[in-house]
């Protein structure tokens, strides 16, 4: 199996789709000659040219709006929002337009738009460049939301997102870009709405997204040394959510921890916890624990940033609490 970095995996999904399909094209700030501020689109301008890899003005509303228009006309645009913090500027287009057209037109109009964006703390980007705002978008009917944690998932899911006929918000995490992992020889699309059991275990299920999948793996290793068997499930697609896989896992382990880097309060994990208690109440042997960022703006100082953002020890502590060992 070849190995790709997460960054290369995203790029490969884009290039593969663009080679196969003239309708796929890219728009975003500095994505062309510069190759994107995170280097994800490097080389694509050279391969596909300025018509299909287009730099835009610094206006997130314009970027998304143009993408919606192109999608409505039958293209499959992939637009990049440099930081997910700046998704906020394009929310009118996403929430009121992209998410609504198919419904309001009675299905006559489709919006096969993919919005890639990245965020996340851990490298001191400060309070305005590191937020995790997926919860804002999973709340909107009409959108699909994907958050990939591994190179293989990033490649397979992004490809499926591009070919989905609905607007898909595709979250990437800044710290994951250099992370390497095995990927299939040729790109295999991963269907949206399917969770992945990252690690099997019997005592507690950690439902984690993005970088917390990796931090949960670290916690699981430590817990394993204490004789605790941790199962880790990554939903991968936050909307629609693969509740069956999550519920099955919790029915097996009887305990659940929900972990994401976003702020805990009102976060995606709250929804997961609610679903679990609805569908697996009689299988729960402990309250569901939540792990996420503290309810505070992200600090710039590295030590403070680390304090606010959940670490492996936080996952471990939550695992311990579900087992009465905190």
């Amino acid at each position, binding site marked *: 199996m070849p190995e790709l970095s997460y960054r290369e995996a995203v790029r490969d999904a884009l290039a593969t789709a663009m080679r196969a399909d003239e309708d796929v094209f890219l728009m975003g700030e500095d994505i062309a000659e510069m190759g994107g501020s995170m280097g994800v689109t490097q080389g694509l301008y050279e391969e596909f040219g300025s018509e299909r890899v287009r730099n835009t003005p610094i206006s997130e509303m314009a970027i998304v709006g143009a993408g919606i228009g192109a999608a409505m006309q039958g293209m499959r645009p992939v637009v990049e929002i440099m930081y997910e913090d700046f998704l906020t500027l394009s929310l009118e287009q996403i929430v009121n337009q992209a998410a609504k057209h198919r419904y309001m037109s009675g299905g006559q109009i489709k919006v096969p738009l993919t919005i890639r964006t990245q965020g996340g703390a851990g490298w001191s980007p400060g309070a305005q460049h590191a937020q995790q705002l997926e919860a804002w978008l999973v709340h909107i009917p009409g959108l699909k939301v994907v958050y990939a944690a591994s190179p293989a998932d990033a490649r397979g899911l992004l490809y499926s997102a591009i070919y989905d006929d609905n607007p898909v918000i595709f979250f990437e995490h800044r710290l994951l870009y250099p992370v390497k992992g095995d990927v299939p020889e040729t790109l295999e699309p991963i269907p949206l709405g399917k969770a992945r059991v990252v690690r099997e275990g019997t005592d507690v299920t950690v439902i984690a997204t993005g970088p917390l999948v990796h931090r949960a793996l670290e916690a699981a290793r*430590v*817990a394993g040394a*204490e004789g*605790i068997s941790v199962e880790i499930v990554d939903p991968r697609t936050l909307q629609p959510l693969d509740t069956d896989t999550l519920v099955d896992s919790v029915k097996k382990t*009887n305990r659940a921890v929900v972990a994401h880097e976003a702020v805990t309060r009102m976060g995606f994990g709250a929804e997961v916890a609610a679903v679990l208690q609805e569908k697996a*109440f*009689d*299988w*729960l*042997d*402990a*309250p569901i624990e939540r792990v996420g960022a503290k309810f505070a703006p992200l600090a710039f100082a590295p030590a403070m940033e680390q304090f606010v953002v959940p*670490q492996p*020890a*936080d996952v*471990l*502590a939550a*695992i*311990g*609490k*579900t*087992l*009465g*060992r*905190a």
Partner: protein
Amino acid sequence: MATDVKLPRLGQGMESGTIVKWLKAEGDVVEKGEPLFEVDTDKATQEVEAEASGVLLRIEIASGEVPVGQRIALIGAPGEELAISGAPEMTGETTLAPAPAARDTEFRAAINGAREENGGRVKASPLARRMARERGIELAGLTGTGPDGRIVAEDVERASASASVAPPSPIEPPPPAPTAAPPSPPAALPVDVEAIPLTNIRRTIARRLTEAWQVPAFQLTVSVDMTHANALLERSRDLNPALRITITDLLARVCGSGLQRHPEVNVQFSDESLLRFPSANVGIAVAAPQGLVVPVIRSVERLSLAEVAAQRLQLVERARTGTLQLADLEGGTFTISNLGMFGVEQFSAVLNPPQAAILAVGATTDRPVAVEHEVRVLPMMTVTLTVDHRAVDGAPAADFLRTVKTFLEDPALAL
């Protein structure tokens, strides 16, 4: 630093015990080795001694069923105050706290205390509730070992395991775990019917005999001429006036020798193998005030008749006063149940699992017997051997019984 008083394991297989009463009150000075509380296991009521000297700071469990190892009280230095601290906080490098059973925080005790003041609401996980519901176990009687004293699945598992020890009965549901509060009588009882709450001993008798009832068993009956046995007993009594040597003593001794000759009867059936025991540990069924108990005389084959009688006297005395220790009740390989003193002529006993055989002994009465074409009146005793057919076949059992009869009719042969 206060010392924990934990429920000790008083015998093999003991998973829990019921605290009957405390012999010391909170604030009392306690000496190491002094009796501290009484615990009712499924076999006996026993005093437990203090393992530390000091002041009994707090009794956490005043009465009721408690799993082995659970802290039930604290002994501290005079004047020591109890510190109540929160659970240790997890930080960067922390690993996990030890498992609940081994854990030792004031926190849990404080929470447990709070539970009792919580209007009787039992704190249990949804899974524990579902399991308890499905298995017919009362949550109120369980002690939670989960976070904040919550009853978790493991606690229900433990309760249901101890409620149905060994091979769980496939027919009867396991009896409900003993509850701290006396169970309320069924709703529609007529007023003159008294509902007596089941004691641990009663539950154990019910469970074990139900178990025994499912064993394929057969009975063999013989009548024994007791002329020589009676003469021997008479002379032995003269020789040991203090001992009141009885027919049961002689039977125990004779069965011991018989089991040595027929080791294929001194066995226990288990799923994987047949366990054959090197010596005969003979249990004597005793009607104690609290119910049937079967204290065991070990290696009977090595004892003289007087020694058997001395041990039997001691055990019966302990049974009558409720002071049997678990060690007195464990390890039996054969049981004798004698109802002759009530004038019962013949009966069959229910097996005492996991033992493979039990001898039911009737009264010795003068009966007309045909001897060499003549009718003679002889002191006759009828005994019935009940045998676990899974472990022992008919012929070896009959052979053993013939040996017992021969030994009783000519006791010198048992030597």
